[in-house]
């Protein structure tokens, strides 16, 4: 009798563990080409492992393809995972797809890039505007508040590029003696930034600072500067491994930390906590942090060696 009770209790315990455990989460990222999202995915995987959930990744084969992500959402609505962690490839275009997800009753966490509309458990990400504002402000301070600066924009019309340029422009207002000699688009790409900078170097004999809206463009600009034996303070945004290496080598001034790994960690944790009935704030926005040669160490680790921090160490109750 006693044995039976114990066995029953053990079974019950196992069953309850199994119920809370093994949630199936679908994670949507924008492409397989940007190392940023690879780190995001590693963060999500790490958090899922810690919490005992299983992950399926959905990534458009064609980078940032709207139709592909829409059909992936449709597939997922049919397959019905317990929750979805979602980065839209486009601010607006995915709205109908998200509505389907909502109608199907699958809870979703919005990660990294904001979706224009839709019901989400939470938004987890960084604020592009704050990040750009802080990073540009840091650059202008290091320039001593004066001199010529060049801005390299990302893909025109994307929310990320627009917000980052808005941050740059607002930081500029605080420094009346900084002069923008050129603002040119280089589409977040290294080669484009390299060639644009080669051209701009011809036109402008003095460039004290370069603000690039991402790290790939920053490293492209650095190549152009080195080839022309010119010196400028260069900042980028994202805190990629390549930028960290450049900062370490003294070639790059700083990068705004986009906290890729944390996006994945906390996007996943928010989804699982919500399923388990634990509180999740509506907004988890990581503070804008500038990474320079004094504090790069925390990012100087291979992403697959990183571990997600505990929920409570980052998200404090009541924080918006």
């Amino acid at each position, binding site marked *: 009798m006693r044995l039976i009770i114990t066995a029953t209790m053990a079974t019950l315990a196992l069953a309850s563990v199994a119920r809370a455990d093994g949630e199936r989460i679908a994670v949507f990222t924008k*492409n*397989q*080409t*940007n*190392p940023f*999202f*690879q780190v995001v*995915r590693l963060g999500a995987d790490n958090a899922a492992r810690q919490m005992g959930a299983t992950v399926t990744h959905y990534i458009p*084969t*064609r*980078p940032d393809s709207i139709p592909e992500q829409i059909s992936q959402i449709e597939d997922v609505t049919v397959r019905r995972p317990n929750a979805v962690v979602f980065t839209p490839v486009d601010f607006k275009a995915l709205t109908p797809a998200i509505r389907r997800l909502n109608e199907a009753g699958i809870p979703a966490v919005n990660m990294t890039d904001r979706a224009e509309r839709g019901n989400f458990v939470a938004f987890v990400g960084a604020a592009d505007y704050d990040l750009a504002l802080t990073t540009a402000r840091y650059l202008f301070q290091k320039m001593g508040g004066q001199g010529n600066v060049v801005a390299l*924009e990302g893909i*025109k019309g994307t929310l990320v590029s627009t917000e980052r340029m808005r941050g740059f422009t607002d930081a500029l207002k605080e420094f009346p003696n900084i002069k923008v*000699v*050129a*603002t*040119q*688009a280089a*589409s977040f*790409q*290294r*080669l*484009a930034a*390299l*060639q*644009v900078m*080669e*051209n*701009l170097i*011809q*036109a402008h004999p003095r460039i004290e600072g370069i603000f690039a809206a991402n790290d*790939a463009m920053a*490293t*492209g600009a650095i*190549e152009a500067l080195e*080839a*022309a034996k010119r010196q400028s303070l260069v900042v980028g945004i994202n805190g*990629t*491994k*390549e930028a960290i*290496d450049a900062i370490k080598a003294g070639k790059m001034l700083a990068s705004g930390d986009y906290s890729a790994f944390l996006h994945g960690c906390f996007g996943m944790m928010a989804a699982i906590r919500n399923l388990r009935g634990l509180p999740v704030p509506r907004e988890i926005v990581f503070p804008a942090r500038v990474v320079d040669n004094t504090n790069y160490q925390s990012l100087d680790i291979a992403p697959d060696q990183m571990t997600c921090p505990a929920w409570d160490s980052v998200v404090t109750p009541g924080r918006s």
Partner: protein
Amino acid sequence: MTDLGLDRRAEVTPAPPMRFMTRVAAGILAAPVILRLATVLLLCACLTVATPNFLTEMNILNVLRQTALLFLVASGLTLVLIGGGIDLSVGANLGLSACVSALVLQATGSLALTLAAGIAIGTLVGFANGLLVAVMRIPPFIATYGMLWVLLGITYRVMAGESVHGFPASFRFLGSGHLFGVPVPVYLMFLFLGVGGLFLSRTRWGQEVYAMGANPEAARLSGIPIRSRQILTYTLSGAMAGLAALVLLARVNSAEGDIGEAMTLPAITAVLIGGTSLFGGLGTVSGTFVGALILTLVINGMNLLSVHSNWQPFVAGAIVILAVLVDRLTSQRQS
């Protein structure tokens, strides 16, 4: 509908030998390179007036170096277009070649292996395209479009979302080094400008590519092995994409999955601006050089003048339309 059917039959009927030979001759001689060179000079004159920084030694070397990369991809593509085909996979081929070469360089540190890997992959992919088009008879547009996705898939898998960066100076010499003050890619550009020009105008194979592009049926009937010539053009285009991949890699010092994606359209554009016909049989490598130069000059000029970047795609697009328009007008006059 009936008219269309008749027309198609008329196309299949072999043209009289004389007319066929004239078309081939016209294909070789008629591309109005002079007109395009005049455009370049006009552009340069305007830029010299507009900005004091244009006509400097350093900027000219800059423009040539930027042209070189585009030209290397576009020169191989020129052969494919002259032969009546199209290769939409050049950018993806370049991307895969660059990524694998970067991984080989990182893993072995061997310069020879890296160069061999880049060229070999580019060539193999080109050969595969050739087989799909010539042997499997898949229309070039579809075959190479399919290949584009196959290659992207492999590239993403190979790179696993990571990037490889920081190459030794010995390798970087290929893309960012100088010899006697002139960037290395510029030498490569002029080398292949010569080789490509000689191949097309002085060799039997070159002539056969024109004949094939002008009228495949007539070319076949006059004894030209169409399939092997098609395979040849795609293979050469692939090899050039592989070489360009190495130059690009050495220039930007970093590889990630999307490294080649921005190259396909500019390369096709350069070929078209250079006067090569989308329908085959017409075009020159020197025309493509001028086409690549025009594209580069336009961007260079707009950067120097700090033209708002919204205008850059507009202007580039307008130039393509204009170039094809000029082409239509001049070719109508010829016929």
